[in-house]
């Protein structure tokens, strides 16, 4: 109960029923978050990063959904909560920001009403006081002319302004955790810059934790304290941000970094692409999910899923047989 961590996700499994059978979208993911820190969940489409979080918050409404594992938020397991209990957490102690702000707002109600709704519901504020608080929140999120925005409808605001409004809505009840799912992916780079800056500033002033879901390693480098890399429904590497970027350990993380262009690259030097595609999650392979695309794959990689070993370099963990304590010894013996 007296956990230091704000959020502990333990062996989370999500299987989604479809016409073709169950998609093993999340296959045993574990991570934890400390108060006041930012954890980035990184990976490409279909790796399970968004599904993990949506499942945790009870946002996947599918008949026959299979959930297993635990997600303890401030000591309480979110997966074991009833809908009513979840409603006291979502939007109150956990705020959420999504990729597409326009579809996250109700188009028929004003920005102010939608922010005030949470305050009335969770904090028992009177309507007028809640609207005034909404104006203050919009101001805190640096939205220009907050008093006018309160009475405007979502379509009247630009993408960047709406994203600020959504952050204001997420912050309304003073959450300990802000979950941001690709918050800047739909935005232009200068607007992205403003929004990332705002999130960092709000984190400092409010001391909340941020769980950032993104595919963009540059955004990770900017925002994160800790990073969890996901591939094919599993966490393949977890490390502090400096360790991850200076000593990426898992072959997938390394490949992802080589495929990302950076400033010092010489013109004409080919980008390292990752050939092939991720495995079919209807029937996940028995071994490492990355092994068909991996340059270092060994026989054991096809047969058995590696554990999360402590990385030999850097301070993180990596789901790769090459990090097994006996691996380098075995290789030395083999070479001799």
């Amino acid at each position, binding site marked *: 109960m007296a956990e230091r961590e704000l959020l502990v996700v333990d062996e989370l499994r999500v299987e989604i029923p479809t016409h073709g059978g169950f998609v093993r979208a999340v296959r045993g993911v574990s991570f934890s978050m400390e108060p006041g820190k930012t954890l980035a969940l990184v990976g490409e489409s279909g790796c399970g990063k968004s599904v993990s979080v949506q499942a945790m918050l009870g946002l996947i409404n599918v008949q026959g959904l299979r959930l297993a594992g635990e997600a303890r938020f401030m000591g309480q397991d979110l997966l074991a909560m009833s809908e009513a209990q979840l409603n006291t957490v979502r939007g109150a102690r956990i705020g959420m920001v999504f990729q597409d702000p326009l579809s996250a707002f109700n188009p028929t109600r004003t920005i102010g009403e939608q922010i005030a709704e949470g305050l009335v519901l969770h904090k028992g504020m009177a309507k007028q006081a809640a609207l005034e608080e909404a104006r203050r929140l919009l101001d805190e999120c640096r939205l220009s002319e907050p008093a006018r925005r309160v009475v405007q409808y979502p379509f009247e605001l630009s993408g960047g302004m709406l994203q600020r409004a959504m952050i204001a809505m997420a912050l309304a009840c003073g959450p300990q955790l802000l979950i941001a799912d690709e918050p800047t992916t739909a935005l232009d780079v200068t*607007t*992205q*810059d403003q929004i990332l800056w705002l999130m960092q500033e709000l984190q400092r002033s409010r001391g909340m934790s941020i769980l950032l879901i993104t*595919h963009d390693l540059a955004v990770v*480098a900017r925002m994160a304290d800790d990073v969890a890399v996901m591939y094919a429904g599993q966490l393949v590497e977890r490390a502090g941000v400096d360790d991850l970027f200076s000593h990426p350990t898992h072959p997938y993380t390394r*490949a992802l970094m080589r495929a990302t262009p*950076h400033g010092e690259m010489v013109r004409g030097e*080919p980008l390292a692409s990752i050939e092939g595609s991720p495995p079919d999650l209807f029937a996940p392979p028995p071994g490492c999910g990355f092994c068909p695309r991996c340059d270092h794959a060994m026989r054991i990689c096809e047969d058995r899923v590696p554990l999360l070993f402590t990385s030999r370099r850097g301070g993180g963990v990596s789901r790769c047989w090459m990090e097994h304590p006996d691996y380098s010894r075995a290789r030395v013996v083999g070479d001799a």
Partner: protein
Amino acid sequence: MPESLANKPADEKPLLSVDGASCYFNLGQGQILRAVDEVSLDIGSGEILGLVGESGSGKSTLGKLIIGLNHKSGGRVEFEGRRLPDHYRSADFRAQSGDIQMIFQEVYSALSPRMTAGEIVMEGMRLTGSDNGLVLREKALAWLDRVGLSAAHMNRYPHEFSGGQRQRLGIARALAMRPRLLICDEPVSALDVSVQAQIVNLLESIRREMDISILFIAHDLSMVRYISDRLAVMYLGKLVEVGSAHQVFEAPAHPYTQALLASNPLPDPALERQRKHQPIQGEVLAPIGAPVGCRFADRCPHADEQCRQQVPPMRPYQSGDWLVACHKA
């Protein structure tokens, strides 16, 4: 240094020359949206020109204007010294299909869902050439093979492909017409990082092999820096800076280019921690009506009266092929 590619002999005629081209849209009630406003630009033979700007800057509109999918409200576009029409009829498209081709960001909506990959690649060749069915099939197969698809994909429909494969199909369709200029409108924005690299490498190798020019329109600055010989930056319908990609990225001259590059996050936590700048303030507005001064003046930290009164012309900056539209540069 990589600049050797950027410096073309000065006497070489550009492949494509855009001269003061505009594309206006009438919004009604006397409002005119100047999506592209008197833009001049050359693309050399075998060159990759990166065109960057934010949403609403007019970069896609310019690309479509060049190929004829948007009308021209003014100015002219010349391809190998030949003037392209202001308003296109279908015969015009057919006549120029061997010169200019385009690939799109939303490639799924650019491919007919009722045609197989083979039919999609063959269609252009069938309409413009005289090859019979068997030869067409052979050629289509060769193009699919060239972009990394195979004979097994010939009879599949677009919905059976992944995003990256679909973009490859779009490239094969364009290349089958043997164009001299390929306009790529955000070709990798919708793709995953690992697949982006596959497509960009493919474009780069095609450029070398077929000696085609590429107009690479994108908002991902790191990718544009990586692929481009020269770079053009647009803001609200106007070009603000054109120069070799190396020069512009190393020492951007226009305040907007500076702000754009400064806001681009880098995949390096140590560098990111040193980041001190305040993000650029304000929002991108719509370029409605004739500009009074510099379109960027209200967001620019260096703007003064002159910037608010006079539209800055494109002027040479340092070297001859580096142009900047700023009173203060």
